[in-house]
């Protein structure tokens, strides 16, 4: 008979008794290119459709096919959707890694494995379920060559059977996944059903984990951050997109192409946008700058290596004051680094990207909803301040599936900034491109093609005066640089304010940003319940830092800055910005392994640093 008789010892034993509902992480270990992605999505959606909060994280190698991949689905009734370290339920489909995968589990975890792997011999403190996939597949899939793909759908059924996920929802998920491909849908459904039936018939459920219907996902969507950003840019009125493929940013533009084709082509079949694949990142940003100069809302998306290549042009945009939006979907550096792992390692070098005295505005989304909304903020700020705006996303946010409330339609109209039209020029007679008329450091510009003899000005990356004439005069240079500083200071009060969550009169503060957020909110609860440590939490959403950031630090004895890089990059930016006497309050917690930040790591480190 199919299930092993090893009675789980230790933890496993007790687990047998109590029931753990809607709180678990399921890991599917397989190889990339084997098409397991759709099975995982189906499993994820089925749980989601039962009203249970979920998140799905794909840990994949930097190659195309044949190497180990792990997909982790977390279901959590509290709504924690950050990464959870411990795996409760392992679906071992990859012979190559099965051993390690099993050995790394905590006692009491369940393992679903392909019969021939005979993993049950490895440990006796786990719960093992053995499944004869090939036999099962053969029954539902006559065509031998399709079996490899369908096999993956069988485990979906088995897992559903064991965790009591409703087959009805599995079916809905499959139908959605294979949308128009009805034959494929039916075949996969049959496979899932076969797995489900097998579980019910031949597997004796042990272990404590169950999925039960609840109501926490009604109306919610599932989307990855890059797709959310693509939608956001489309609704932000972006007109020119240039790009050069690089993981993990490629899907942002590729999805955007799909959306733009669907929603931004007029009745006459003409496009209200141009999307161009450039020959490299130097060309991509050059086009962004040329287009921004000529009045388009232009953008590109890239990752670390691309950011480095954009250094020289970024300095030009800063100094010649040209709007543009750059999405940096951060991956692990330095250099090529780990292209398929997540990081927050480009913060410091991007803030000061390019030689000379340069500074750049950065926006930092934490959620798919912010990928959407910050797209509008980024374009508005870029045009208001006539400068580049870098949106610092990361691989975890950009490429993983996240649950979210549906996005809100932009509430404010598009802000094009200080652009003089022909009519205004008729009134004014002329203008000085870099004159600070409003005291905010921002001058007025005209767009090429403006039909007025006084519209033209000469844009250059070399020294210039108010009228944008060439100048090497020390005073012209100094005044211009001071004005650029003023402009950056003005930006402080226009960038997105931080989100602040308060604890019960806490003396300790936590500052984090981006995807670290999800680990933090969970960790704060752990700190409260497990260590009675109350914390206030400020989530940074932009650089330069707004007033609130300084105040937050002023109001706390110790502030832990949590980030996903080695050199405490954001803490560094804070140090440079803070009153020196406040810098003593900062402590660094940095996470460097390329995996999404999990709550437990933060809790352990912070509690230790607090001497608990």
């Amino acid at each position, binding site marked *: 008979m199919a299930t092993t008789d090893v009675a789980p010892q230790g933890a496993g034993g007790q687990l047998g008794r109590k029931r753990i509902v809607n709180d678990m992480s399921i890991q599917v270990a397989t190889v990339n290119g084997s098409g397991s992605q759709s099975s995982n999505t189906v499993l994820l959606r089925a749980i989601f459709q039962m009203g249970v909060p979920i998140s799905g994280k794909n840990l994949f190698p930097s190659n195309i096919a044949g190497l180990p991949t792990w997909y982790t689905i977390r279901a959590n009734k509290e709504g924690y959707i950050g990464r959870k370290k411990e795996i409760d339920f392992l679906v071992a489909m990859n012979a190559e890694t099965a051993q390690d995968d099993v050995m790394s589990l905590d006692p009491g975890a369940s393992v679903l494995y392909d019969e021939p792997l005979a993993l049950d011999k490895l440990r006796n403190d786990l719960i093992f379920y053995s499944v004869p996939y090939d036999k099962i597949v053969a029954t539902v899939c006559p065509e031998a060559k399709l079996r490899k793909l369908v096999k993956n759908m069988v485990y979906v059924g088995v897992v559903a059977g064991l965790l009591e996920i409703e087959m009805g929802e599995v079916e809905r998920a499959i139908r959605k996944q294979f949308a128009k491909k009805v034959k494929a849908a039916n075949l996969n459904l049959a496979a899932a059903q076969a797995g489900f039936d097998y579980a019910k018939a031949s597997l004796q459920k042990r272990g404590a984990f169950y999925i039960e219907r609840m109501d926490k996902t009604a109306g919610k*969507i599932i989307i990855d951050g890059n797709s959310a950003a693509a939608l956001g840019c489309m609704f932000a009125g972006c007109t*020119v997109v240039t790009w050069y493929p690089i993981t993990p940013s490629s899907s942002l533009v590729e999805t955007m192409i799909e959306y733009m084709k669907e929603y931004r082509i007029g009745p006459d079949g003409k496009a*209200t946008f141009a999307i161009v694949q450039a020959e490299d990142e130097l060309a991509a940003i050059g086009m962004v700058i040329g*287009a921004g100069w*000529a009045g*388009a809302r232009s953008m590109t998306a890239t990752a670390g290596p691309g950011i480095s290549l954009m250094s020289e042009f970024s300095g030009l945009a800063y100094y010649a004051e040209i709007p543009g939006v750059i999405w940096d979907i951060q991956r692990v550096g330095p250099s090529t680094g780990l292209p398929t792992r997540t990081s927050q390692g480009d913060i410091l070098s991007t803030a000061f990207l390019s030689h000379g005295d340069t500074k750049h505005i950065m926006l930092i989304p934490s959620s798919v909803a912010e990928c959407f909304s910050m797209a509008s903020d980024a374009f508005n700020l870029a045009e208001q301040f006539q400068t580049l705006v870098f949106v610092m996303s990361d691989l975890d946010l950009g490429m993983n599936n996240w649950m979210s409330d549906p996005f809100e339609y932009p509430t404010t109209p598009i802000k094009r900034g200080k652009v003089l039209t022909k009519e205004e020029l008729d009134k004014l007679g002329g203008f000085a491109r870099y004159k600070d008329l409003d005291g905010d450091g921002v001058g007025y510009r005209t767009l*090429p093609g403006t039909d007025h*003899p006084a519209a033209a000005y000469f844009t250059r990356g070399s020294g210039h005066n108010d009228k944008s004439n060439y100048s090497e005069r020390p005073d012209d240079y100094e005044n211009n640089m001071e004005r650029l500083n003023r402009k950056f200071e003005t930006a402080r009060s226009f960038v997105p304010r931080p989100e602040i969550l308060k604890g019960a009169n806490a003396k300790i503060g936590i500052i984090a940003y981006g995807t670290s957020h999800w680990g933090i909110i969970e960790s704060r609860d752990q700190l409260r319940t497990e260590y009675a440590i109350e914390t206030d939490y400020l989530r940074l959403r932009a650089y330069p830092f707004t007033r609130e950031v300084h105040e937050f630090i002023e109001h706390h004895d110790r502030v832990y800055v949590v980030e996903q890089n080695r050199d405490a990059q954001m803490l560094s930016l804070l140090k440079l910005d803070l009153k020196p006497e406040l810098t003593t309050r900062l402590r660094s917690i940095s996470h460097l392994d390329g995996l999404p930040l999990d709550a437990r790591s933060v809790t352990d480190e912070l509690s230790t640093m607090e001497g608990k």
Partner: protein
Amino acid sequence: MATTPSAEPKTNHIGLSVLDYKGGKTTLCAGCGHNAISERIIEAMYDMGVKPERVVKLSGIGCSSKSPAYFMNRSHSFNSVHGRMPSVASGALLANRNLIALGVSGDGDTASIGIGQFVHLMRRNLPLIYIIEDNGVYGLTKGQFSATADLGSKLKSGVINDLPPIDTCGLAIELGATFVGRSFSGDKRQLSTMLKAAIAHHGTVMLDVVSPCVTFNDHEGSTKSYKYVKDHDEALQELSFVPHFEEIDVEYDPGTTANVTMHDGSSLRLRKLEEDYDPTDRIAAMTRLSEAHDKGEVLTGVFYVNTKAPSFLEMLNMVDQPLATLPESMTRPGREALEAAMEELR
């Protein structure tokens, strides 16, 4: 043009005087070829009656790249970074397809640091007039060899160039540019005519204009000196141009003269100085250029014209108005669109 004795200044067919095309005072060396090219550009734009406000001038870095400051002050201009002007020009044209884009570069800006963007620009056939002010050296950094310096060419310091030159014309044709020629800053007639035809062309125009650097590369032993070019200039055709807005047309003999009708209806006349050279034959053009290179000729003329190929902007199938100034109503889809997108994700 016919001159009628009158008080008010002479104007072109859109009513502008040549002064409306002038630029700032040059800061280039007296006698620099680049200054002569600026004058030809002013001439051609004036003669063709191009509205300065429709023109954008783009350049990289170098003495040549400074020159846009010395003509057409009524046109927007962007002096960008070294060797990357093609991408900036491309972006500007994506944003506003109605602009008439004039790119001015140098041989170092194009053939050394800039060759990568140059190659891809030529491939795309973007409607842009790309002029290389070619002196074989880096003028602004005081006279080092560039990648168009000829084999064996000598610097004042006595250093001899031992690398083969990049023939930017051959490259441009090989890669897909649709109007390719070479001229000489000292040849007023040929250069002006070429520039007018360039203005009439829709697609990438690549003109390599030999433009001696009087300070660093005009000496004995240089192959880019005024003397050397005058001695070795080998004109492929005698050019003349009849703009679309001129009624009276000139007779020509189809036997000895090729007539190319440009996109705007103007005609470019090429009186053959070489038997049966056909400027619409890509392979022939490249072959002839390689020969010239082997013979050490400075071959000038219009090497290749193709008025059929679609421009990059056409391929993009954009709306007719410039993307830059589309109203929010056209660039931000409605609420129903967002709702539909959300629904798909539920």
